[in-house]
C-alpha cells in the first residue's frame, strides 16, 4: 500500500499532523474557506457604507485576529467525539464546520444481518444515556411493521421505564451542563439521581446501563414488588431534588449569564433547521410525538408539554427541568393505573414464550428456538415508520421488510444527528467560550448521531 500523499492546505502549514485521511481534512478546510457564513453576508451588504469587502478583510488584519481552531474530537466539552473546525475572528466564531463520524459503527448495515430481536442490544448503544427509550422505539417500530399487539401491562411498564430513562438522560444533561458552565460539583449531585435510576433498572432488567429489557411483543420480565417500591420511592423524592437544583441555579448569576441569550434560535429557524425534541420546543414549536401521534398509553395519561418561546440555552434549561417534573407525573399515573395481566403477546410467531414454557414443555422449547432462529416475519415488501419522543427528540425507525426474519433496510432517524446539523449554524456568530454551553444545551449524543 503506497503511503498517502502529504496533504496540501492552502495558507496553512500543518506539517506532518495528518498522516492518514489527508483528503478528508483537506475538504474540511476547503469547506471552511468557501463557506458563506452570515458575517460575510452582512459585510457584503454593508459594502456600500464604506466597509471593506470581505475578500480584502484578511489583508486588513494587522493584529492577526483570524485563526482556525480545531475543537475535538477528543475534548471533554464536546460530549463524545464531535469535531468542530471553527474560523475565529478574535473570539467570535465566523464560520464553523462540524465533522462527525468518529463513532460510526454502521449499525444500519449491521441490522441487515441480524434478526429483529438480535438487533436490540445495538439500540442500547445508540443513545447510551437512555437505552430504554431506544429499546422501546425499536420494539414499537418492529411491532408496527409486523402488526403485533402488545398486552396492556407491558405498555405501562414500557411507559414507566422510558420516562425514567428521560429523567436519567436529563439528569446527565444538567450535570454536564453545569460542569460546562464551571460548576463541577453539580455533576455529582445529578449523578446521584442517575445512580438511583441505575439501581431501578438493575432491579427491573438485571442490567444497570445497557438494559435491553423490552422485547418484541412485550417486555422481558415483570416488575417485582421491590421494583415498584423503588420507583415509588424515587418519584416521591425526586421533585424535591429538582427544587433543590432550581434553588441553586435559577437565581445564580453565573448560570443565568452564561446561558441567557446564548445560542438563540427563533421559531422559524428552528423549524427550518430541523431541530427536534426539547430544543425545538424551547423555540416555541409544540411538536412532541407523545401528543402529535400518541403511542403506548400517552393519550390516556394527563401531562403537559412544556414550551418556551425564547429559544436560547436558558429556555432549554427551564424546559428540560419542567419535562422532568412532567415525567414524574406520568410515572405516578402509570403506577396507579397499571393493570395485572400478561407481559408478552401470547403467540409464538410474535414474541418469545415465557421461560416456564421453554423449560417445561416441548412446544415452548421449539418456539423459543424458532423465534431465536427466524423470529418475527413481517409481510414481504412491507415498510413503515414509527417514531417516539426520546429524551433527545424524535427517534424514528423506518423499516423495510423482504419477508424474511431479517430487515431489508433499517433507517434510523436519530435526534442528535438533526440537532447537530442545526448546531453548525447556531455556533456561527457566538463566542468560543459559548460553544461549550451550546453543545451542552443541545445535548447531542455521538453514539446516536454517528450511528
Amino acid at each position: 500500500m503506497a503511503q498517502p500523499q502529504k496533504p496540501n492546505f492552502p495558507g496553512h502549514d500543518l506539517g506532518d499532523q495528518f498522516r492518514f485521511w489527508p483528503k478528508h481534512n483537506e475538504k474540511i478546510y476547503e469547506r471552511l474557506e468557501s463557506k458563506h457564513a452570515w458575517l460575510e453576508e452582512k459585510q457584503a451588504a454593508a459594502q456600500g457604507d464604506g466597509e471593506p469587502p470581505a475578500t480584502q478583510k484578511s489583508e486588513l488584519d494587522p493584529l492577526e485576529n483570524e485563526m482556525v481552531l480545531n475543537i475535538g474530537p477528543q475534548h471533554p466539552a464536546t460530549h463524545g467525539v464531535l469535531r468542530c473546525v471553527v474560523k475565529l475572528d478574535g473570539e467570535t466564531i465566523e464560520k464553523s464546520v462540524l465533522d462527525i463520524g468518529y463513532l460510526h459503527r454502521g449499525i444500519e448495515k449491521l441490522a441487515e444481518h441480524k434478526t429483529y430481536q438480535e438487533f436490540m442490544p445495538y439500540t442500547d448503544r445508540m443513545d447510551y444515556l437512555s437505552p430504554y427509550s431506544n429499546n422501546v422505539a425499536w420494539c414499537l417500530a418492529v411491532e408496527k411493521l409486523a402488526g403485533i399487539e402488545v398486552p396492556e401491562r407491558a405498555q405501562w411498564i414500557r411507559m414507566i421505564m422510558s420516562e425514567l430513562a428521560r429523567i436519567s438522560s436529563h439528569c446527565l444533561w444538567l450535570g454536564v451542563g453545569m460542569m460546562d458552565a464551571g460548576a463541577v460539583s453539580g455533576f455529582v449531585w445529578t449523578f446521584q439521581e442517575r445512580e438511583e435510576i441505575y439501581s431501578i433498572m438493575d432491579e427491573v432488567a438485571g442490567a444497570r446501563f445497557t438494559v435491553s429489557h423490552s422485547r418484541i411483543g412485550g417486555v422481558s420480565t415483570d416488575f417485582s414488588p421491590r421494583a415498584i417500591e423503588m420507583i415509588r420511592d424515587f418519584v416521591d423524592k425526586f421533585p424535591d431534588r429538582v427544587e433543590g437544583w432550581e434553588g441553586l441555579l435559577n437565581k445564580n448569576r453565573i448560570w443565568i449569564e452564561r446561558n441567557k441569550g446564548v445560542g438563540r434560535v427563533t421559531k422559524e429557524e428552528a423549524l427550518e433547521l430541523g431541530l427536534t425534541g426539547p430544543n425545538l420546543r424551547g423555540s416555541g414549536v409544540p411538536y412532541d410525538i407523545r401528543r402529535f401521534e400518541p403511542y403506548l398509553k400517552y393519550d390516556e395519561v394527563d401531562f403537559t408539554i412544556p414550551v418556551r418561546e425564547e429559544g436560547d440555552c436558558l429556555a432549554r434549561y427551564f424546559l428540560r427541568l419542567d419535562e422532568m417534573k412532567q415525567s414524574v407525573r406520568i410515572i405516578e399515573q402509570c403506577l396507579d393505573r397499571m393493570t395485572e395481566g400478561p407481559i408478552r403477546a401470547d403467540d409464538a410467531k410474535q414474541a418469545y414464550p415465557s421461560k416456564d414454557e421453554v423449560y417445561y414443555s416441548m412446544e415452548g422449547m421449539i418456539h423459543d428456538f424458532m423465534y431465536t432462529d427466524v423470529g418475527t416475519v413481517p409481510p414481504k415488501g412491507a415498510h413503515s415508520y414509527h417514531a417516539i419522543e426520546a429524551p433527545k427528540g424524535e427517534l424514528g425507525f423506518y423499516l423495510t421488510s423482504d419477508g424474511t426474519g431479517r430487515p431489508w433496510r433499517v433507517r434510523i432517524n436519530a435526534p442528535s444527528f438533526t440537532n447537530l446539523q442545526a448546531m453548525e449554524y447556531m455556533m456561527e456568530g457566538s463566542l468560543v467560550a459559548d460553544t461549550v454551553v451550546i453543545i451542552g444545551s443541545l445535548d447531542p449524543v455521538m453514539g446516536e448521531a454517528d450511528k
Partner: protein
Amino acid sequence: MSNPDDPRASDPQDPEELRFHFTPSDEPTPEHETDNPHAKATTRVPDVIEALRDEFGDAVLEVERYANEDTVYVEKQKIRPICRFLKAQGFDYFADLGGIDNFTEEDRYEVFYNLVSTERQKRIRLKIRVDEEDMRVPSVVEVYRAANWNEREAYDMFGFTFVDHPDPRRMYMPEDFDYHPLRKEFPQLGVPGSLPLPPQTPDGELTMDPFAAAHGSKPVKSYEEPDTDSDSE
C-alpha cells in the same frame, strides 16, 4: 424448474426432498393496509395526495398504503417542485430522508422523504426511484435546509449525486474512502486496505485492515508477546 406452472413439482434431476424450501412471508393483505394495532391517524393524507395529483398530474406515479401510512411515489425530476408545493401546503418540518437499495435490475435505489406538518398534524412520505445508471437526484436543500446533512449521508452510504447540493461531502466516512457501505454488495466487514487507521504501535505503519484476523492474516499487536518457548523452559 421443469414445470413452470407448478414450481413445487418434483424433477428427477432436482428431487423435491433435497430442495431447500425457503418460503418468505406472503405479500401484505388488504387488511394490512389499514389494520394495525399501532396505526396512527396522522399518516393518512388523502386530501394532500389529491392536491398533488391536481397540481402535478402524471408526476405522481402511485400511492401505496401499509399500516395506515401513505407513501407517494413521485417522479425523480419533479421532487423539488413537489417539495416546494408541499411546504406551501403546510408541511413545514423536514423529518427524515434516506436511501434504500432494492438490489433489482431496474430502478435499483429509492430515496424517501418524510415530511411533517406541525399545524395540520399530518405526516407524508414521498419516494422516488433512482436507476443505477443515473444516480443524479435533485437536491431539496434549497426548499428544506434540514435536508442538508441527510442528503450528505445518503450520498455517503449509497452514492447518489445530489444535484445543486451546497456541500457535497461525505457525512460519516472520510473523503479518502472509495466505497458506499450501505449498498448491498458491500461486505459487512469492509474492504481491507480501503480505510487507513492510526498505527497500532508508536512507530508502526498505518493499520490497513482492522479485521485482519477475520480476513485470514495476522493482526498487528500493540504490545510485544512474551516468548512462549523461554517461558516453558
